[in-house]
């Protein structure tokens, strides 16, 4: 995949208000955003600032109450229905791996291909090579419940990559993992992204994780949710865990942390 051949994302005046018993709740106020083709965009912010809402609107899981989401210049929503061409470009990794317990690991990873009518031998072959890619080779035949949390999340990433999506949306995918596993998966995600060249929108509540992974970091603020700060992250790729000790890295993290404290 060529980095410039993948689609970007364009949000034009996107807004989401939820109906609640106490009247409408503005989860995200009118937002304009361009995600460049092949970019790794990190969204960070305190809990309840609308990160998930924003990501779910890009993923076609929540319909905006105003504005438009454009994927490869196609509108994701038209007359209350998802555009199936636009949705084919997308894959989502959630905080929970959301593997189906009744399928083996390899069948879980092959599920998207099964739904697309890819014959069984072909999709299982793809599933096995993806297991190697995400580092769970040899565990293909197990049930998901037999995997550790980190391995389940690797399998969820493999499932998302199975149909070569051009856009990968990730909602705190490593949020429930321990720090060591998390560092490891961050490195591997970067490696996979560099190899695949897809556009990634990555939600996290960890500023360090956002700065480590992102080409650009957006800080969101709550009540109502909106984009507060935007920073470009200049460090070259591939980044090593050791860059977190660099003064430039720490200054950037500190700047965002100060701002985060100011808005919460």
């Amino acid at each position, binding site marked *: 995949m060529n980095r410039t051949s993948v689609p970007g994302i364009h949000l034009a005046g996107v807004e989401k208000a939820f109906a609640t018993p106490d009247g409408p709740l503005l989860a995200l106020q009118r937002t304009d955003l361009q995600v460049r083709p092949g970019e790794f965009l990190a969204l960070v912010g305190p809990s309840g600032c609308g990160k998930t809402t924003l990501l779910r609107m890009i993923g076609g899981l929540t319909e905006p109450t105003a504005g438009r989401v454009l994927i490869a210049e196609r509108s994701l929503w038209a007359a209350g229905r998802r555009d199936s061409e636009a*949705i084919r470009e997308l894959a989502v990794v959630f905080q929970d791996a959301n593997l*189906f317990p*009744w399928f083996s690991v390899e069948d879980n990873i092959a599920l998207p291909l099964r739904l697309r009518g890819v014959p069984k031998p072909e999709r299982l072959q793809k599933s096995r090579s993806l297991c190697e890619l995400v580092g769970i080779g040899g565990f293909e035949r*197990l049930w998901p419940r037999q995997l*550790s949390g980190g391995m389940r999340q690797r399998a969820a990433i493999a499932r998302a990559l199975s149909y070569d999506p051009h856009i990968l949306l990730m909602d705190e995918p490593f949020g429930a993992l321990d720090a060591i596993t998390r560092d490891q998966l961050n490195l591997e995600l970067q490696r996979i992204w560099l190899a695949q060249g897809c556009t990634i929108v990555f939600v996290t509540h960890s500023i360090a994780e956002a700065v480590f992974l992102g080409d650009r970091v957006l800080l969101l603020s709550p009540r109502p949710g909106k984009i507060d700060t935007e920073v470009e992250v200049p460090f070259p790729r591939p980044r090593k865990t050791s860059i977190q000790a660099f003064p430039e890295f720490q200054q950037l993290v500190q700047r965002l942390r100060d701002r985060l404290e100011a808005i919460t």
Partner: protein
Amino acid sequence: MKRRPIPTAWITTPALIVLFIAAWHLYVAWSGVSKFIIPPPLAVWESLVDLLGTASTLRHAWITLYETLVGFFFACIIGVGLGTVLGKTAWLEQALNPFIIATQVVPKVALVPLFILWFGFGTESKIVVATVLAFFPILTNTVLGIKSVDSGHNDVMTVLNAGRWQRFITLELPSSLPAVLAGMEVGIVLAIIGAVVGEYLGGSTGLGHLAVASLNDYKVGMMFAVIILLTAMGFLLYLLVGALKKLLIPWHDSVASKIRPVAG
């Protein structure tokens, strides 16, 4: 290393049975109760041997088994079919719920003569009673199963743009299967009760009829023997559904407790 649990059930269960029979024997011997009211265990044993040696017993047992299985089969079809529809259509569930509950709270045994009037003294009326008794737990459990599909799993299918049928086959059906099978475990027992009650109240075949006929001939020992036979049949059918569970939901907690998580 963990100690292997001692399989206590293999010792306690036979011990309890022996204890029960001993208590029964002693009670009959010491209390002086008439053997027409409670026959001693040895007399029941002789009747049982007698019963099993009679050619017509097998025919009666077969008829009861047939009514039970056919009734259970219809209960499964109606329960799973209607349950799926109701689980997916909230307004229909609300509209039909009072009627479904009515079929359960109405004293069904009082209706058996009516069923016999409608469907005759043959096996059909018993099959109907078995179906009516057995379908309810299967229905309610199917509705519950379909409605409790995990929302994260639903999101996965939405992102993959799955069609209604695909969603049903790969998500809703397997996800509700543990609940459906739990309903079937109750259902099979109720189906036997339905068939036997039907035979009690009308007709001239089946183990239920045999039990009443024995009593009418003052052969209380024989009646006990018939009940033991019925219990054995019920046990076997219950185990059969258990085996079905192992076959259909090997991934589920209720079956898979022996599966160990792997490290990593």
